């Protein structure tokens, strides 16, 4: 223990933290959307769709995430034509009003795709268990009231399924934040990567990794708070109805 980190290194860590948040948020959005589709596909009436969805889950849930990330970053890159790789690896930006929108680096894109494909399986399964957690009587009651299958799904089944799957869903979001640290292997400068970089430059190992740990825990704690808020407002809305 020899003093605190110089401001330069704190900025590195915060930049890494920003990257972790950006990656996690992007993955949470895409994996939630894809997870919905996957759950629908797995409960579809068409057998081929069901089987295809089951195969997807089998492949992506049963292989290590780090191998999947390496596959997307190194493996897929060898399949792409040289021109595409050159385009992906040169900076691009578009002017959007006052801001410049940067096209993310290939490391980010590969990490995003890899984490999305992996997390989709877990989120999809959480949705599916939410859907199957709604009692059969609810389906029957909705039908008896004369609701069309679509209306029954949107107004009766889905709200209950969402409430059942919300807590495990947030558990998956927390996993996404933690799993995003594996993208350091493909060179994405997120929080774990920058804490390691700070460690090798300053030799202040405790401070570097300690700071990273605290930032991860803060993020997870924030997600917990959001979960509590969502659950409360959800139950209040249910009471009002």
């Amino acid at each position, binding site marked *: 223990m020899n003093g605190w980190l110089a401001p330069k290194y704190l900025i590195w860590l915060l930049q890494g933290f920003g990257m972790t948040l950006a990656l996690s948020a992007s993955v949470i959005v895409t994996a939630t959307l894809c997870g919905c589709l996957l759950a629908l596909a797995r409960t579809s009436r068409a057998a081929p769709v069901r089987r295809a969805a089951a195969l997807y889950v089998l492949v992506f849930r049963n292989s290590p995430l780090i191998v999947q990330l390496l596959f997307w*970053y*190194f493996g897929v890159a*060898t399949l792409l034509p040289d021109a595409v*790789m050159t385009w992906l690896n040169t900076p691009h930006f578009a002017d959007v009003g006052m801001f410049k929108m940067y096209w993310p680096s290939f490391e980010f894109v590969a990490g995003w795709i890899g984490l999305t494909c992996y997390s989709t399986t877990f989120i999809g399964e959480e949705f599916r268990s939410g859907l199957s957690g709604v009692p059969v009587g609810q389906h029957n009651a909705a039908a008896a009231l004369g609701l069309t299958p679509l209306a029954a799904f949107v107004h009766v089944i889905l709200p209950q399924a969402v409430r059942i799957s919300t807590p495990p869903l947030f558990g998956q979001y927390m996993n996404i934040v933690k799993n995003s640290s594996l993208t350091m292997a493909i060179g994405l400068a997120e929080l774990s990567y920058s804490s*390691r970089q700070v460690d090798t430059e300053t030799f202040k190992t405790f401070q570097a990794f300690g700071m990273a740990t605290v930032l991860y825990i803060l993020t997870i704690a924030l997600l917990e708070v959001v979960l509590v808020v969502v659950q409360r407002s959800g139950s209040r809305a249910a009471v009002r109805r």
Partner: protein
Amino acid sequence: MKINLLTAAFMGSMLLMSSLAHADRLDDIKKAGVLRVATFDSNPPFGFVDPKTNKIVGLDVDYAKAVADKLGVKLDIQPTNPANRIAFLTSKKVDLVFANFTITDERKKEVDFSTPYFASGTQFIAKKGTLKSPDQLNDLRIGADKGTTNEQQVRAQFPRATIVAYDDTPFAFAALRTGNVQAITQDGPKLVGLLANVPDRDKYEIPAFTISNDYEGVGVPKGEPRLLSVVNDTLTGLEANGTAGHIYDQWFGPKSRAPLPRLFKIGDPQKS
């Protein structure tokens, strides 16, 4: 315990006697007719065991042989590892160390160094034609090994370069092959070793510049000025008559297994 004390006392007195009796190592070497040199035995191409002859060969061995020839004595090779180099010299087990011995201020406190006879530094591998001069580094994506001095040097000297750090050199090279980075950085001799095992190595090159310099010299025991000056004179002589370049080309020349441009000649001014 008693025996240990006795042994220690005995060895101590022997050491004292030897340092008293042999005031000058150069005379001892000539009298014995043998120059004892420590080299690596598993660090190609500096010093390694030739599987055909079962003898230690390499760039360092060739330079040591040249010094022995100059003195007119036999060469006796003693294999060493990096950690033992200074101990071998201070315990007088060997007369000289030729083992890719980088000259540092820390080491200069323990041993003397000859004029450098080899230099290495942070270099790059890129696809042929993409990297010609260091200025281009600022606009490139550069792969590095996490936690190496190479990564830190590139970041410090080329602030606009995009550095992507990987877990090890093979990962960095995979990223270069797939086009995720345009160049990768490591120590020059390590890069040639890496390139030597690549099937399509014709596509890649090591541009002829370094962005940092480490100098390797001959380790000489402290307090042996005559021995040191003979080593220095021999090395400068080898450069003057072309032998030094010849030895270099044998291990790093264009036709060797691991071609590396010779950017440093014995006697060149040292860059920081």
